[in-house]
């Protein structure tokens, strides 16, 4: 089996190459596509199984992170995007992609609200860009997160704070749409900086649509997919060298992309 993934690019998105690498590493056929090219040939979506909106700084975060890119997608491709997520497909938005998905209303509280903004991802409580490693607890059953309990991966954002009204939060909680929360020593970070790096409501780091197939995640799994990318790589490497053990090639973030491959029955190159 094979699966085709589209990775969006353009207007300041900037993590498309490493996101492509993550997908290809797991045997998925990936293609980076500029938003203007996708607008010109929306049929590309029909033959794809995976849509990835990578991290970046689309439109410089001006008018709110992800807003302008989402407006552009909404005007040109909303119907096509809706049909895409209604098929048996997987969609992921990482960081700026997460902000774009929430601005598009593709990770809504209930199935009938597709296209309505109910959650915002806005300015960090510190009002400062935060690039640091955090710990996540996985809290729902999205196909992207199957079998994953915790992840140690980095965040890098100025606007990563999930905000919503109480009703919406309750719906997300009741429907199990909160996909990952920030933790401290295994317990919820309870808003404590820097474990929760942005002041996100209920320590939310990622949410999904009701089906779990659309994942909007602020932290960057593709920056923590290899052991050598980890912030404690030097310590891990040293221990392995002392004990004569072999270092695992992949790290927590890779599982997410491996799950996407497995969902479509794609055998990863490593397994093959």
């Amino acid at each position: 089996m094979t699966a085709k993934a589209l990775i969006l690019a353009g207007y300041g998105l900037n993590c498309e190459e490493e996101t492509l690498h993550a997908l290809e590493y797991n045997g998925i056929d990936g293609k980076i596509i500029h938003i203007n090219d996708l607008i010109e040939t929306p049929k590309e979506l029909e033959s794809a199984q995976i849509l990835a909106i990578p991290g970046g700084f689309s439109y410089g975060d001006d008018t709110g992170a992800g807003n302008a890119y989402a407006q552009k997608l909404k005007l040109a491709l909303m119907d096509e995007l809706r049909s895409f997520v209604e098929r048996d497909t997987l969609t992921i938005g990482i960081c700026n992609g997460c902000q774009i998905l929430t601005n598009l209303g593709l990770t809504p509280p209930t199935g009938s609200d597709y296209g309505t903004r109910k959650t915002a991802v806005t300015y960090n409580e510190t009002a400062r860009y935060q690039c640091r490693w955090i710990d996540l607890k996985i809290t729902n059953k999205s196909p992207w997160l199957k079998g994953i309990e915790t992840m140690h991966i980095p965040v890098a954002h100025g606007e990563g704070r999930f905000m919503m009204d109480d009703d919406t939060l309750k719906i997300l909680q009741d429907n199990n749409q909160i996909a990952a929360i920030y933790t401290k020593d295994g317990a919820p970070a309870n808003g404590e900086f820097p474990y929760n790096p942005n002041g996100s409501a209920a320590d939310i780091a990622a949410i999904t649509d009701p089906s779990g197939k659309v994942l909007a995640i602020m932290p960057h799994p593709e920056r923590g997919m290899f052991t050598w990318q980890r912030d404690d790589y030097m310590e891990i490497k040293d221990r392995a060298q002392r004990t004569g053990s072999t270092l695992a090639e992949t790290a927590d973030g890779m599982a997410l992309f491996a799950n996407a491959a497995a969902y479509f029955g794609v055998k990863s190159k490593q397994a093959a």
Partner: protein
Amino acid sequence: MTTRIEVLAHIDDGRAKTLEKAIKAKGKSAAVRVADIYTSEHAKASSDAFTQSLANPVTQETNTTPNDFDWALEIGFLPGVTDNIGHTASELLSLAGADNDNDVFSSRLYYIKGNLDKSDIEDIANTLSNSLIQRATIKSAAEFKADDGMDTIIPHVTLSTTGNTAADIVDLNGLSDEQLMEISQKGIQNRGPLGLPLVYMKAIQEYYAKQDKPATDIELETIAQTWSEHCKHTIFASPIDDVKDGLYKGFIKRATKEIRAAKGENDICVSVFSDNAGGIIFDDNYLITDKVETHNSPSALDPFGGAITGIVGVNRDCIGFGQGAKPVINRYGFCLADPRTSPEYYRDKALTNPILSPETIMKGVIDGVESGGNQSGIPTPQGFVTFDDRFVGKPLVFVGTIGLIPRTINGKPGHKKKANAGDKIVVAGGRVGRDGIHGATFSSVALDEGSPATAVQIGDPITQKKMSDAIIKEIRDLGWYSAITDNGAGGMSSSIGEMAEQSGGFHVELERVPLKYPGMAPWEIWISESQERMTMAVPPENTDKLIALFAKRGVEATIVGTYTDDERAKITYNGETIMDMDMDFLHDGNPETPLTTTFTRGGEPEPNIAEPSDHAQTLMEMMGRLNICSKEFISTQYDHNVQGTAVLGPLQGAGRVYAETSITKPVLTSEKGVVLSQGLFPRYSDIDTGAMAAAGVDLAVRNAIAAGADLNQLALLDNFCWCSSDEPERLGQLKRAVEAIYEVAVKYETPYVSGKDSMFNDFKGFNADGSAVKISAPPTLLASSIGVIPNIDRAISLAPKAVGDLVYLLGATKDECGAGEYYDHLGHTGNNVPETDTHQALRLYKLYGRASRDKLIASAYALNHGGLGAALAKKAIAGQLGMDIDLSNIDLRTDKTLYSESTGRILVTVAPQNKEKFEKNFKGFEDLHQIGHIAHTNKLSIRNVLDADIKALEKAYKSPLSEY
């Protein structure tokens, strides 16, 4: 009709909270609401679609005023200043159905409630804005109500066009020396200085005496740009004393030439000193490039604008290397005054124009690199901050970019390019405004509608990102252009002028250049330094498809002329010839200006000081010194792992120590890594610039070697930031520094591949009582290193890894505290500045290289500011592990053992099982000292000297700048 849209943020807004915190820090208390304002004259701006596209209904309300506030403060841009938010809003306006040429202007409104008076609000306005580029409007709640809100302001640029002449004639015939110098100093019709010395002015006069027509304004402006110190580097190029070739050819370039010859087949250099960056071999498939720039003068006036323009500017140097390199790592470096002080200096005698405070400058330059680097998607793991109060009026702002480029592109070497006669001149990117005209000279006059922010510029990273992606990720590999370069200093006059040297001439049709606003004179268009532009030479058959592809990526590209081979530099404006000069004269017509120097060693007698009575206390104080303490707050706001390539980051170990060296894996599928570091010791120049420069180069090399870089694949960049370079004594200091770095590099066989200089870092102004002062930045060489580590599994961090590991000090510790941190802490300069023993150092680096290849070293730190004491403490903090140390075998009094800054030393830890192999590796090397081991304690213990709690050390190290 003008539409003003106010988007009010949720009451719980990070920006509002941060301002509340800042107000609280000043002893007041206030509640703040923030609104983003968009103003436009376009008819579609009043549409619901546009309004809705600007606001997120979850957290924002449109056109709502909060009920309860005492003050309203609005900050917007002055006319002509780059407004990136406005630019994005205007794209949204296009999506809402407007035509593409529409303007939206952004501003930000703060509603403030609290017991504050107007002067408090003015203080807040001053911290939030810079009057050089921004306007601040303040209204009390009553005024707000009476006026029915804030005023609607459209910051249009309106230029008074000067008649119909495309160019003004400047007849130099028969002018006296005084008259020539008046033109040079005040400019043509007082437009701003040309800045040329008399010998140059006379050479120009002589040239035109032989021509059949007098000079035009645009010709003189072009010559002034081309011959400027900034572009020609005349101080480094001129004969100096008995060095006929000058400092650059005679020492720096010669060092590289000799090293390349000595290395023979193992030469790593591919492109040195000839392009926008230097390029060395990375692996069989790729080159890595590096370039470090300075942006000092602009950053003194507008720190944010200066720094962001600097970083996106040096990104373009990378994009303009060879056929175009992909920016993969950014560097930064700031030399600043103490941000906790408020020195009072003014630019004018009337004391109305104060300099910016050190805190404002620090925050601004940090923010500028943050914006530029983060938005461009380039990791910024590598940098430093150095403090000295003499950087008060002229901070040094270093920015650098490492690039990655295939060694072969379309069957041709990736680093080669040539503009051919017949190629079209295509400029892509942002439009041209009055930005940065005469960028080197600043006016202290307030800017108004008629003089739109010409001196300062603000970068537009997203416009550049779109352009960069289009070039590096698509067009380059299609082979549609024959050459490419960036637009930096001098704008098109430099970029086109330099590329035309390859073809042998150019003809530019200046009316084709897209402008930000009407009314600019041709000479302004030609030398404008408007940002985010690349210039290409494009064969005529490729221009249509190239321009079309750029357009598809949201980038404007325009043909502005043709490269020729008639040896003429020619410009027409609507058909009228306004410039027509010999290429030869333009590029090589500047006469030689021989320089002479003197040199006097500085310093004082060595001070007679007592040993500290409490060594632990002294160590705590040393760790809190600005040049030693942590700058973690910078690292966490710079995205240092975008592109997924970070191996060894800026914060190392569980204790997160701010490190001097980083490792990056720019090719995800390669085992190799790029090792970056730097070294600089500005204060050593108080005693000897030679020692200063040698120590800087040694540290740049040693840091990289300590982390595991291969000495055989290590290159250097030199950035000289000097002062008063028209004085023989300063030139003597310069010559001594250049001689020193020649010797160190040749000894280590580490070639210079790129460099830059900034020669007049002096502040001339007035102190609080109105007397004239001149504050010169200490002569500073920044040495930057770029190397390759053959496999990242050999990388070595500074953090100790395990209890029981042995601690070794490699290298000799001498009585060398002169101009170092310890003496400065005690208020002395001294005389014994560290001298670099390159022979011993090289022996060590080679032996160390073998040990690191064999993975015998668990952690390593190259000693620098604060010597062994600071190094031990940083290691203990990084590893969060205790250390038992015994220094009794080092034959030097204890305080000097701890704080001497002798170069060539590395502090390492070694696993006990590797002890034998490690010591055997260094057999015969006399400066190997086992000084202790990593202990199962929470203390740094130095026998008979001190016991320091690691948490207390960490606090001393981390607290000084933690609130910034």
